[in-house]
């Protein structure tokens, strides 16, 4: 489990009583941010009719996410495009950087994913109340439900709404942690079984690496698309 350890890099920084030291987690957040900014900055720099590779990457990502948003949340969600783009890219790059050996996976920490999810949850709730006022509470009352079942349904809806940040954050965190733990376990098997029996877990390890890269992309996508769906609930209130 040492791969998930957070340790201080450099001196201890304190803001009053609070410890905000630069850690390896901070380092990989900074690396992800810089990598995203560099890639997309160079991708957006030149404007040619036939794009070069980086430009193509930037433009494909742009149209991919813009299509995802318009498919799930409609045209009203356009102002939130930059946020969802940043979110997707941040999660994707943190996940992918974690796939490099000896790196730290930022998204394998519940606190990081929970802060992201809580921010989304609070933001979406605020947007919903701004757009629909108190009528946003209608979200908890689905139409076409018999009166007898209504109290039960409303309670279930409220619980499911409140559990959104938890499910969103735990999904990402658990996926990343489980994947890395599994790879660590199989890696350990390779070492302990040695040259005689280590080939099977080694093969598994290779296959798992491929799977984990898929999961890294998929979880970033799921995170972004669930954000879009929550945003859709807040913007277009029809259950």
């Amino acid at each position: 489990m040492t791969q998930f350890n957070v340790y201080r890099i450099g001196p201890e920084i304190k803001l009053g009583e609070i410890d905000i030291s630069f850690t390896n987690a901070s380092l990989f957040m900074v690396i992800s941010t810089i990598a995203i900014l560099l890639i997309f900055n160079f991708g957006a720099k030149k404007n040619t009719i036939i794009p070069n590779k980086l430009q193509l990457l930037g433009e494909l990502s742009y149209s991919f996410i813009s299509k995802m948003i318009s498919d799930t949340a409609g045209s009203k969600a356009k102002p939130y495009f930059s946020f969802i783009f940043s979110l997707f890219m941040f999660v994707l790059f943190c996940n992918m950087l974690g796939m490099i050996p000896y790196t730290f996976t930022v998204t394998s920490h519940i606190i990081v994913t929970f802060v992201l999810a809580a921010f989304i949850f609070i933001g979406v709730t605020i947007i919903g109340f701004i757009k629909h006022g108190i009528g946003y509470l209608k979200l908890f009352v689905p139409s076409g439900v018999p009166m007898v079942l209504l109290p039960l349904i409303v309670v279930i809806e409220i619980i499911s709404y409140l559990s959104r940040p938890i499910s969103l954050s735990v999904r990402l965190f658990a996926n990343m942690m489980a994947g890395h733990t599994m790879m660590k376990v199989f890696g350990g098997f390779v070492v302990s079984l040695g040259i005689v029996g280590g080939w099977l877990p080694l093969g598994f390890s290779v296959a798992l690496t491929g799977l984990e890269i898929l999961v890294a992309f998929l979880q970033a996508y799921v995170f972004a698309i669930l954000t879009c769906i929550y945003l859709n609930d807040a913007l277009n209130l029809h259950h």
Partner: protein
Amino acid sequence: MVKKIIFKNLIVYFLSINFVQAAESGGMPQLDPEFWVSQIFWLVITFGILYLALSKLILPKISDNLETRKSQVLDNLELAEKQRNESESKLKEFDSIILKSKIDAKNLFNESRKKLLDDINKKREKLEEEMDKEVKIIEAEINELKKKSPERINKIAIETSEDLINQLIGAKVNNSSITAIVTDVASKNKTQ
């Protein structure tokens, strides 16, 4: 009030003890709250910078690029369509010009052929006329010659027979008697 605060503190205390124990007993480092605040702090900073830079600097550029490409492609398509129409109309014009010139050439050919035929006919008529004239003159000459020839033949016959008699017998014969004989023979020949 005091009770409430004490209660709260107790809860926090127990919670933190639990987390610390979990971390110390080799549990998940994720549940160790030591660096939680630091992680939140740096997450907010990095994600904030990322969001600001992407939304203010980079994404508008990419969107602009896409827009300009789209409009340029549309422009090019429009231009191509326009040029195609233009070339089609030019082609039609070209065809009509060729058709017209073909008709012109045909007309010109027919006209000149007609003219030429007329000319040839005229010249032939003229030539024939001239030939007829010449033939008539020559015929007249021949007729005249024909008319004159018996007299001259008679004259020659008289002269030669005179000479012959002169040499054969050495005597001069009367000219008029010979003439009578010759004309008699000639008329006999004629009747035969």
